């Protein structure tokens, strides 16, 4: 059976709805398309680079590892598209408004709550940001990790929410999360309105990317990209899928927004140069 096979990680039941819906739509446009689901990103990365399927809906961390593995294997990989909502995100480090921490330097000797070990937005990026501010995790301050959904690269919101709870419970002096979840946690009451203060914020970075693997020929890759880019929010057949996936339109993929995460991977030794998983205590 020919056609494009895409891999996606089943971090939530809605993933089935989303990709089944996209599949129907793409088939309707004349593109033979199917998908397979993985329970975590590491195997998805390995199988993409190994040519077991053709394209992957990747976390940013998965994309960085894909690059490393592909370089070693001499396999051609490239980013195709990303969501408009994947561009220019930021993570924040927040403290209690009534707490003693006023500056980043005040975190020295204290505890910082983060998400899962493999969460770019709630762990790797904010800790890298603090490192660039002069504070090294595990040396200058303790890290309290919340390993929920390990292997999902932070797609599961649970770790971030637990970090926020730890902050309000007084178990940590600061908590790390993506900007949108700071708003979400305040709306849902996990963080009391006005109860937290922004201590510092990362520079803008990019998030998920749909990546082509070595088994996807250029013509097919271009056809898939063109169709996704042509999806319109005005089309009721796809609008509910776009809502579920959290985008209003697809944008061309770009690699310019992953430098901070690459630095974090480097400084923490999350992967080695050949793309092997070397993070301590990380078992998807």
């Amino acid at each position: 059976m020919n056609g494009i096979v895409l891999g996606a990680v089943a971090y939530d039941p809605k993933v089935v709805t989303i990709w089944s819906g996209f599949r129907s739509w793409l088939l309707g446009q004349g593109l033979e398309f199917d998908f397979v689901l993985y329970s975590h990103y590491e195997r998805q990365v390995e199988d993409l680079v190994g040519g077991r399927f053709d394209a992957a809906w990747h976390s940013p961390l998965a994309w960085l590892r894909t690059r490393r593995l592909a370089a070693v294997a001499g396999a051609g990989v490239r980013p195709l598209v990303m969501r408009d909502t994947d561009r220019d995100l930021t993570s924040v480090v927040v403290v209690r408004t009534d707490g003693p921490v006023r500056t980043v330097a005040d975190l020295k000797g204290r505890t910082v709550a983060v998400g899962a070990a493999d969460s770019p937005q709630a762990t790797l990026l904010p800790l890298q940001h603090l490192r660039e501010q002069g504070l090294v995790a595990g040396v200058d301050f303790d890290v309290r990790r919340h390993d929920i959904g390990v292997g999902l690269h932070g797609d599961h919101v649970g770790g971030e929410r637990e970090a926020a709870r730890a902050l309000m419970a007084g178990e940590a002096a600061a908590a790390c999360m993506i900007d949108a979840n700071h708003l979400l946690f305040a709306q849902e009451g996990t963080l009391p309105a006005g109860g937290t203060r922004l201590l510092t914020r990362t520079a803008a970075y990019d998030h998920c990317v749909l990546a082509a693997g070595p088994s996807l020929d250029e013509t097919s890759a271009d056809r898939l990209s063109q169709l996704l880019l042509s999806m319109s929010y005005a089309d009721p057949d796809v609008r509910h899928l776009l809502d579920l996936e959290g985008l209003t339109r697809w944008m061309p993929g770009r690699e310019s927004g992953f430098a901070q995460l690459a630095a974090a991977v480097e400084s923490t030794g999350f992967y080695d140069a050949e793309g092997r998983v070397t993070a301590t205590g990380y078992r998807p």
Partner: protein
Amino acid sequence: MTTDDTPLDTVTVDLGDLGLERGARLLLRRALDQVPAGGEVTVTGSDPALVIHLTAWCRREGHTVSPAQPGDGGVRARVRRGGTASARWAGAERAGGPEPGGAAERAEPHWGLAARGALVEAGGPEVFFPVADRDTAWTDLAPRLYRQATAAQWDPWTAVAWDTSFTLPDEVEAAVVQVMTYLVENEQAALVVPARLLVQVHPHFREILQLLAVQAADEARHVEVFTRRALLKNGVMGTSSVGGRASLTSLLAEPDFSIAAFLLSVLGEGSFLSLLTFLERHAPDPVTRRISHLVRQDEARHVAFGVGHLEYRARVDPRLRGRLRSAVERRHDALAGTAGLNQDVFDALVLLAAGSWAPEAIARGWQAVQRLQADMDEGRRHRLSRLGFPDDEAAELSQLHTRNFM
């Protein structure tokens, strides 16, 4: 904030100290509604997290945000409106009009449970209702009948003086219990049939759903009062015959909305109007008399709905009468081998009309039940005429109606 109705390229919204997590979103949406896609909203406000939250919110909503430059007065950010919000409603349509006259000829499956007249976003799940054509279920009488029905609801606990003191001879009380037992099983059929029809009808035709819902609720009350009267003195129910239940079961098997309404409301409940009049006249006690009176009022409304619907449908579908005739004949054939009315019920009606066991009284009672059956026949013929059947055909069809009355 600018309140001019004309879209402007730029408006300003001051959020005060309100954060996005506490409702500033409403003010932002209101301001963004005032500019076209590509237009700009200038945001001022003092919430410390405003710019971060605004950035996250705009990303999700498809707007573009730029933080204010130094020296930009009190401005915190500028939001350029994206096209997402308007795209959502681009293909939206009104689901008919809200008034009864606005009901569409065909209710679309994707309108689903939307209120009639609502602006319905395109897409979404399609909900299949077998009755989606207006003419299949509609009657222009429905809004008025629903209003009457809701105004005429009565409370089974208070509308009947259950503690009224009376004593009947044992055999007369037993006759009442037998008739009540028969009425309960008939009313249970009359409850289940409209409830089944209700779930077939697209909610776009809400007046029909409302009427069927009240009709089912009426029957639930009837079941209540007839049961309560049956048990009032001795706490034991009467008999239920195979023939009676076979007749009622054949009503449940009818899948077509109009035919089910015809068999139940026009022929069955129509015949019951005569029976309830008979019971009110010959009731041996005030409780039986009162409940017969109350129930008859409700049943008259159900008959009016059935006749009204079929008159409407007969006007738009000339083949309807042929199908109604076939349904009566089919049901007659199906019930030909059954006993019809429970003999115990027939005898109970005679005794109630007789009032005693004296032979001349029984003769009067017998005559009264003969008149009752003649009245039922006349009523059916009259209603069949209203539906456009010629007199001879109406008489023939009336004779084919079930001997169980319902």
